[in-house]
């Protein structure tokens, strides 16, 4: 391999190794404010997946075991893996009841392979559902 190519490869590997969050990154303490959303409907955009319009569907999805995320105001998504001492993150009854709520949480953030995972240590505030999107979008996905 030519020397220049070897140098380039080495520099590339070095930069990849130094890139934060590429693998199980360090744990960061964060405060996140945003809306609890259903990860599938929001990411795929197969329907309008925010606020009151999507509450019923978000409940179905959470009961069905689809991961719940918090969507921060800047559009960042945080997949919730634990809430305080409760590590049941599939169909967790407490999580199901607060779908579409606007919450403020403190937690530990772990980034890996393009996904932000959040381990909530404290729910600091729960404003309930404040984004009344059903007025414009009806009830998703089927209007009933």
């Amino acid at each position, binding site marked *: 391999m030519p020397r220049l190519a070897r140098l380039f490869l080495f520099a590339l590997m070095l930069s990849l190794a130094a890139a934060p969050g590429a693998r199980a990154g360090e744990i960061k303490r964060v405060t996140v404010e945003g809306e609890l959303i259903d990860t599938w409907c929001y990411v*795929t955009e197969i329907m309008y997946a925010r606020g009151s319009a999507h509450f019923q569907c978000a409940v179905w999805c959470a009961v069905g075991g689809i991961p719940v995320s918090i969507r921060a105001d800047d559009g960042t*998504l945080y997949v919730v893996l634990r809430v305080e001492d409760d590590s049941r993150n599939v169909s967790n009854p407490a999580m199901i009841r607060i779908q579409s709520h606007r919450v403020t949480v403190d937690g530990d953030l772990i980034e890996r392979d393009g996904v932000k995972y959040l381990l909530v240590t404290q729910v600091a505030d729960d404003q309930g559902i404040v984004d009344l999107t059903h007025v414009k979008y009806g009830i998703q996905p089927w209007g009933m």
Partner: protein
Amino acid sequence: MGDVRMRWLRSLALALALICVTAAAPAGAAQKWGIDGEMVAQFEATVVDLLCELRGDCPAACGGGSRQLGLVRDDGTLLLAVKSNTLFAGATMDLLPYCGQRVEVDGLIISHPAMVIYMLQRLRKPGATDWVRATAFAEDWKQRNGAEDAKRWFRRDDKANEVIRTFGKVGRPDIMPPPAD
């Protein structure tokens, strides 16, 4: 009135699309959904409990269905398995029998600016001939509820119905949404 009619037509189109996609048997490779950023992806991986993989919090048998599971590919990449072939259902029950083991999966990788997710459509033990459709949630739901089928399970589920009865379809008991047209 025009708005309501358009909303109804959009809802009908979506319903038909969902029914077509989920009713079609996966004779060949995974089915595309027409989602932005989707890519058919068939590969072998190891099934992991996400909290175990990320934090070393490792209950027996990946939590027995109470934990979100992921797929670690051979290059070490962790994929979040979000959805199965059952409407409104995740992939935990499908992947659970392979906890800590290798599995071959077929489905969609969906890349969104906010995150990358995986939709599982079918799976099999590496080297096996036959694929198994990713509908384990429906099978489990039928057993748990003593039901003959899991059609529209989400409308018949006690846990979901209790929440919707309590908070209403828009999650606010103080608000009555307009009737569907």
